[in-house]
């Protein structure tokens, strides 16, 4: 809001000043009044819990007896807990494998969709449906598709090609890959829609100018489309990582973290520790770790993409 000298001189006359001041004051009160209900609600149900989480993470607390200060004991316990490390590792594998694949697929599909074919909307619906559908319902469907018996859809396909039945979710070596496949399938829709929206927002004059300069389609893609999509790619990457680390419904309903902890994730560990073992202090320590991991990842991915936050 930089005003140039001319404007400032024009506005600096006393009557204009005074009117402006009262108006701003009146507005200011209303601004605060409009923002207050939501802000108070978020302070109470997000801000306060963060503080409580951090405090509780330094205590022993079982909900029956008052919390007992225990220093960094919970964090030491976590550092020595192989299952917690396994959960962290699974989250990382899911992010590193699943997110790039689904981003590439969704970018490719968005570019194809952007050609303006007829029947676009049917395609969009089909790809976006998994995102709209509840994850619990999704888990039930895939539970049946992955069914290790002969009537699971995947095993029907395998036996059609003369291949032996697989255990999928019931196998410690295949379960995580099976879960990742579901997350890819479920995640493509939203990413594709965001890419598509961004593609449609690119100024067509850029392409027209490139046409005049005799650029090929490939050149246009790599020199115009990709650079223009950089901010949106950053946005999708960060939100995907954040979303990936919050995978819970799928794990709870598909595998319960098993078999042999092969698909357990941080959120599932938090759930088990807090609401099945009632070790609230330890569970809040886990959730603080989750919080830190996500903040660090956000900063790192911001640096890697070189994008800037709005």
């Amino acid at each position, binding site marked *: 809001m930089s005003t140039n000298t001319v404007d400032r001189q024009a506005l600096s006359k006393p009557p204009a000043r005074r009117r402006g001041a009262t108006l701003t004051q009146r507005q200011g009160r209303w601004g605060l009044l*409009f923002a207050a209900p939501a802000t108070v609600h978020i302070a109470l149900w997000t801000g306060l819990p963060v503080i409580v989480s951090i405090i509780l993470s330094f205590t022993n607390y079982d909900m029956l007896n008052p919390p007992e200060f225990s220093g960094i004991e919970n964090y030491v316990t976590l550092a020595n807990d192989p299952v917690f490390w396994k959960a962290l590792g699974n989250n990382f594998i899911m992010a590193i494998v699943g997110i790039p694949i689904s981003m590439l697929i969704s970018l490719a599909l968005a570019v194809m969709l952007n050609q303006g074919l007829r*029947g676009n909307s049917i395609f969009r619906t089909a790809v976006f449906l998994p995102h709209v559908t509840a994850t619990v319902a999704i888990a039930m469907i895939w539970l049946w598709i992955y069914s290790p018996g002969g009537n699971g859809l995947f095993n029907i396909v395998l036996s059609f090609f003369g291949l032996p039945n697989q255990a999928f979710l019931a196998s410690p070596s295949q379960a995580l890959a099976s879960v990742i496949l579901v997350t890819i399938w479920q995640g493509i829709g939203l990413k594709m829609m965001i890419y598509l929206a961004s593609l449609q927002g690119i100024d067509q004059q850029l392409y027209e100018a490139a046409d005049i300069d005799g650029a090929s389609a490939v050149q246009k893609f790599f020199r115009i489309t990709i650079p223009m999509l950089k901010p949106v790619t950053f946005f999708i990457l960060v939100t995907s990582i954040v979303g990936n680390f919050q995978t819970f419904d799928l794990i709870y309903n598909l595998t319960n973290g098993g078999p042999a902890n092969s698909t357990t994730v941080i959120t599932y560990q938090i759930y088990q520790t807090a609401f099945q073992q009632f070790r609230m202090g330890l569970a809040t320590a886990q959730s603080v770790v989750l919080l830190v991991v996500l903040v660090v990842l956000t900063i790192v991915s911001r640096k890697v993409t070189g994008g800037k936050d709005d």
Partner: protein
Amino acid sequence: MTDTAFPGTIDAPAGTEQQSAELKADRRQARRAKQASASKQRRISRFALAIFLIVVSVVMAMPFVWMFLTSVRSSTEIYSADMPLWPSEWHWENFTVALERAPFGIYARNSFIIAAVHTVSNLVLGSMAGYALAKIRFRGATPIFGFILASMMIPFYAIVIPEFLMIRFVPFAGGNDLFGQGGTGWYDTWWALLIPALVSPFNIFLFRQFFISTPTELMEAARIDGASEVRTFVQIMAPLIRPGMLTVALLAFEAGWNNFLWPLLVTSSTNLRTIQLGLSVFRQEAGTEFNLLMAGTTMAAVPMIVMFFFFQKQFVNGFVGSGIK
């Protein structure tokens, strides 16, 4: 495919009509010949593209088709060694059997109430805050916006335990005393399901983005005309972002309908179960009777699918128009 009104042919002088007509025909012919080969090639690649996209659609939709096909299969077919891909008989009664085993009607009603309340509360509280942060300069605006942005980064799972404890220890509720002791607080009540998610920071952020692109002049004009701040907001500014409203409404409704973890934690009675939680519980009852489980899954999934079919365009337009980056 635009072969009418070419810019170059419009400005022919009126006196040389015949000549210009010949010229036009000539040019058109040359252009057609050139276009023919290019368009043929383009048509082939477009055809290949269409085929590819159809294949992708089928693959993406396959799990839903499989869900539906399973929901009408007979129990014997589910267990038979050579189950046909297409059901040999259509057993619609699977749905009534599933409804008898679990009260999906109550589950759906509960989810609908939660989704509807959260939609309205997000629209009202979120748009008010978003409007203030985008359009009104007031003391505290910057820290409040910073706070909202920071809250957006907080994963729900990092605060779920304190939220649960807050529900459990609400003073003077559910037999609790002033210090939240002695009773169960809001545990297993509607309050627990409704209050914590009344407004999400992300929706406030979205509303702020929508309002930023609205013309401030309109707001100022309304003020000069003597409209109150409330009236300026309700009657002038809020209607400007209707597509944004619809986007937030759809997002809030979807979140409410599809929520699973929170109802899992704060409810225990069947009467308060949401549809997703009910489906998850039903899985234990149905066991390996996948036809019944898929019937239940269909009932849990279809409302959102129908809603998406109805509002698909607004959904997409909302995303495009809101400039989500």
